[in-house]
């Protein structure tokens, strides 16, 4: 073992964010609006269309990272904490797999632990 690294994920790459939302099974639209209380609309860069209730969106902030936008009170089928955690984990996984593939690594093991953590083992020969 040579070194150990710990990174807190920031959502900054649009293509990877869209890919990760699709992998989670959501319908995604870009440059649109989402509805909230009393039909009010707010513009978002990326919208996740929910089957029922209000939609969830993402806006790109001045720091180059995406924030979650929703009228969470009217979101059905998930909640803020669950949705945020799910997207952050999937985004991290999508990003990691994208990066390691570029470096010639192959995934040899992937599993979800009882704790909800995703564990990956990747390998390459040099």
């Amino acid at each position, binding site marked *: *073992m*040579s*070194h*150990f*690294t*710990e*990174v*807190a*994920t*920031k959502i*900054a*790459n649009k293509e990877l964010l869209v890919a990760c939302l699709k992998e989670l099974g959501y319908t995604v639209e870009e440059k649109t609006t989402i509805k909230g209380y009393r039909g009010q609309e707010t513009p978002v860069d990326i919208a996740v269309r929910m089957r029922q209730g209000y939609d969830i969106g993402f806006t790109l902030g001045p720091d180059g990272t995406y924030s979650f936008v929703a009228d969470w009170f009217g979101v059905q089928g998930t909640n803020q904490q669950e949705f945020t*955690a799910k997207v*952050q*984990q999937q*985004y*991290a*996984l999508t*990003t*990691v797999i*994208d*990066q*390691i593939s*570029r*470096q010639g*690594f192959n995934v040899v093991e992937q599993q979800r632990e009882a*704790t*909800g*953590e*995703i*564990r*990956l*083992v*990747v*390998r*390459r*020969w*040099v």
Partner: protein
Amino acid sequence: MDKQELEITIDTNGKVSIKVAGAKGGQCLDITKPIEEALGEVKVREMTPEYYEQPAEPFKVRSNQR
């Protein structure tokens, strides 16, 4: 040929931990740095003894002593 292996854990908040095996010297940083940069902010980076076996170049490392 040498085998290089990474063990990657992604917790439920998207926090990623990477352990590198089989890379010596500064080589492991070349592997993990692009991943770290794509993800965000590095919280912790610890060098394990293998890192010092074959220093490829002078490199400043935070002291492990308290």
